[in-house]
């Protein structure tokens, strides 16, 4: 798409230069308006829209047996619920643990204002809207640590509403979640700011 846009920009640029240098002449509506304006544009757009819908379809969260985790946003932090050791769901603060190499669905909710869940390296974003639960499918191909952030402006602490996604190798033992769990528990008890 970037390449296509660059090409079209260059094309229009060249046309413009030619038009400016051309010292008067005949121009036909058929050529400029119906040919370029309508024909060219409409064909490019048809292809583009078709492709993007096809791509969008493939990214949807469908009812299959993908792992489900949840992300609950609040000013200005994230609570994640995910399977912990032995498959028991555990709640963590600002760190999400998921297995690498498999798709998972994040169910995104909000406690107060609109936030947005975004891990740039894993895919697109999805808003956390009060009263609604949004399902968002992602996949980390390789184990690693991915930075995430709140992308929708949500007030004073928006700047720092960040989180981490830890994608672990499902073949290895589970990573240590205790710190993030403790962060959640301490926060519940009012110990952390």
């Amino acid at each position: 798409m970037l390449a296509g846009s660059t090409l079209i920009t260059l094309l229009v640029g060249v046309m413009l230069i030619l038009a400016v240098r051309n010292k008067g002449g005949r121009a036909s509506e058929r050529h400029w308006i119906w040919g370029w304006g309508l024909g060219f544009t409409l064909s490019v757009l048809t292809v583009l829209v078709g492709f993007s819908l096809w791509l969008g379809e493939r990214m949807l969260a469908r009812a299959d047996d993908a792992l489900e985790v949840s992300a609950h946003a609040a000013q200005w932090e994230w609570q994640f619920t995910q399977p912990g050791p032995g498959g028991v769901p555990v709640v963590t603060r600002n760190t999400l643990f998921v297995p690498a190499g498999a798709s998972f669905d994040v169910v995104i909710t909000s406690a107060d204002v609109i936030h947005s869940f975004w891990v740039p390296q894993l895919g697109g974003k999805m808003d956390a809207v009060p009263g609604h639960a949004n399902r968002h499918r992602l996949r980390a191909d390789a184990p690693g640590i991915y930075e995430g952030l709140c992308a929708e402006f949500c007030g004073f602490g928006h700047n720092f509403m960040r989180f981490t996604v830890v994608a672990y190798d499902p073949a290895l033992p589970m990573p240590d979640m205790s710190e993030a769990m403790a962060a959640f528990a301490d926060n519940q008890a009012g110990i952390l700011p």
Partner: protein
Amino acid sequence: MTFTPPADPRAIAPSEPMVDSLDIAANPPRRALRLHRELDDVWRDEPGWKGFFTSVNHGTIGLRFMVTAFVFFAIGGVLAMLIRAQLATRQGAFLDLDLYNQIFTMHGTIMMFLFAIPMLEGLALWLLPKILGARDMAFPRLSALGYWCYFFGGSVIVLSLVFGVAPDDGWFMYTPLSDRTHSPGVNADVWLLGVTFVEISAMAAAVEITVTILRCRAGGMPLTKMPLMGWYLLGTAVMMLVGFPPLILGSILLEVQRAFDWPFFEVARGGDPLLWAHLFWLFGHPEVYIIFLPAAGALSTIIPILSRTTILGYGAIVAAVAGLVFLSFGLWVHHMFTVGIPHMALAFFSAASALVAVPTAIQIFAWIGTMWMGQVQFRLPMLYIMGFFATFVMGGLTGVMLAMVPFNWQAHDTHFVVAHLHYVLIGGFVFPMLAAVSYWMPLICGRWRVRGLGEAAFWLILIGFHGTFFLMHLTGLLGMPRRIAVYPDNPEWEWLNLISSIFGMITAAGFALFAFDVAMQWLFGRRSWRNPWRAPTLDWAMPLPAPSYNFASLPGPRHGDANALLPLARGEGLLPGAPRGWRETLVVEPGSGRPDHVAVLAHSTSLPLLTSAAIGSFFAAMLSGFYWLAPVGILLTIWAAWKWGDIMGTDRDHPPARVAPDLDLPLHFQRRNTLARTGTLALLLADGTLYASLMFGVGFLTVVAPNWPAPVSGIATLQNVIAALVALAAMALGLVASFRAETARTTPIGGTWALVGLGSGGLALAALAVLAYGLDDPTRHARDALRGVVLGFAVFHGVVASLLALRSLADHRQGRVSATRVGASPIWQLFQMFWLGTSAVSLVLIVAQEVLS
């Protein structure tokens, strides 16, 4: 002002005449100077400060709009520089988070609401009568009212920054962030009330522009031949009529929620924050086309003239404008691709957003084809037009990219979007406006510019702009979200931001130089000769600078383009001079442009200023939280509105006005289909959209919002049923009365009918009051709150309709009606119909809600 030089023989011949050849003879020539004095005495503003407060002349008001808009642009620009200074380094320069939030919110708000919209309104007010061949806009007092509302509202918004209570929830004010719980301060109220106050000016301008284009053209100029600028501004104005009401409704609802705790957007009580998002973007997307269309109109005007040819594909461009007007109302959800709407709905809007690129492309290629056809002259406006092409095309392409759902999920709310929106807004609006200003400056001030400065400013702006925003695409793709003040953990974004900031300062320097250049031209430029661009359009068929009355005699079949400058100045055109000592202009049939009657326009008056102060007192009471004072503001406004009617009629029949030797036309007092009537229809279009938005809100919450169904309601009482039926019956009786008051106007019965209308209006209002008393507590659930608003809508229109009934009664009592003079009843009929119609729909809706639940 001199009247000697001959019309330049080299003015481009229009490829087809702009007027039809009707059989209307020319008036005999007169001494131009004497004619000028006669007209100027009538049309010029009062001297000194008095003139400042009382002017209603479109030339003055239009210029004032533009100058004020540029001042706000400068303020918004300073804020932009603060933003860029802050973002230049990771740790940020000096702003704390709270202040940063205020600053980017204010930057966006000022640029959109206090610069772009008023700028285009100003251009339209100033230019339209000139380019269409009229002496003023259709409703001069409305121009002035709009200006004062803009001035007061804008000042309050900007002053809030000085007091540190500026809005800080982003320019789209998403709830729940902007509700009482999460924004307890007055900041959000400043936005909601301030912007709504300013939007009064947008609605006023939209009504005026529509009516002026449809009815105040040169005699014999059919719609199909009017200058393209007319089509563009007609499209703009209609879009404003339909586009602003959703925002106005949203702002009212949110302010009512903040002030009185009615839960429209609060999930726990049946509201939904997504309703705000829909209402906002239902306005917000059309808004960008509202901004773009007048700019494109300027391009379609200037490009052919500076290419010494005529536009390629007039018809195709008109069709493209129509396509844009419609399609742009089907795009708003592309700002909401990530809120969790199902893919198919996203796909509709994605496809529509792609399709809207077609009419845009048609225009771009028409312009390029026009340049190909002609010989491009690189005068200063042409440079800015090149800047437009170099910028807008890219902005359009990134726009299409953002319309693709998968890409949008990635780029949304990042600096990629910031780059895109500035490419479109600065490329598609600011560059064309700079072209327009440099093109029309000679007409504004009668002077030619000082060489060199303008070119330097252009290059600074162009280079500065691309340096600031081009790399910002990359910054966004690297993951930098918008609306953050510091980014301590992301050193990889720093060099990009630093470059952006440096070039940002260059851009600012360019704009400063541009302003300096304009000031120099105004003060020291040499006198320009007439029609310096040798353009065919009528805006140049007048001496420079433009006189207060535009045309000593009005263009018509024999005098249809700029070559008629001298005959028009000598009074050979239509309706020469000001023989009655009144401000008069020609009114035509909308389609064909045949002369229909002569409208007498308002003279200088301070009523618009007082009216906007009265409206302002209402807003001030709301803003300061003295809600009990707000009714006083309402009463003041009603009083002022009443005063407007006082000078609208006349108590005697006037002889027809001599427009041409063989053409006498009645004055508007003796016509039924007046400008005021067309204006009312335009206003009701906007009003109907407001009502439709409200119905959308009801439907949306009923179907989508969580926490429905609502608790059992207690409104199905006998008392309420009777009150509702009485109200409807009284409204219907009022409708009959409004027609009878007109048909029986020559007999005393007419007055009696007006009295009946007034009485039934009062009865209906009383019944509505009973209903208000019997309503469920509106703070309980969004359904009940919405019913409160539906009722409020009916009450508001009841007050308007009853005031018009009262006006009709006064007409009868004061002898302002006769066999040929109809007075206010045609307007009253329209409002009465609207009141009855919307109330009936509301009743059906509420009954359906009750029965179905």
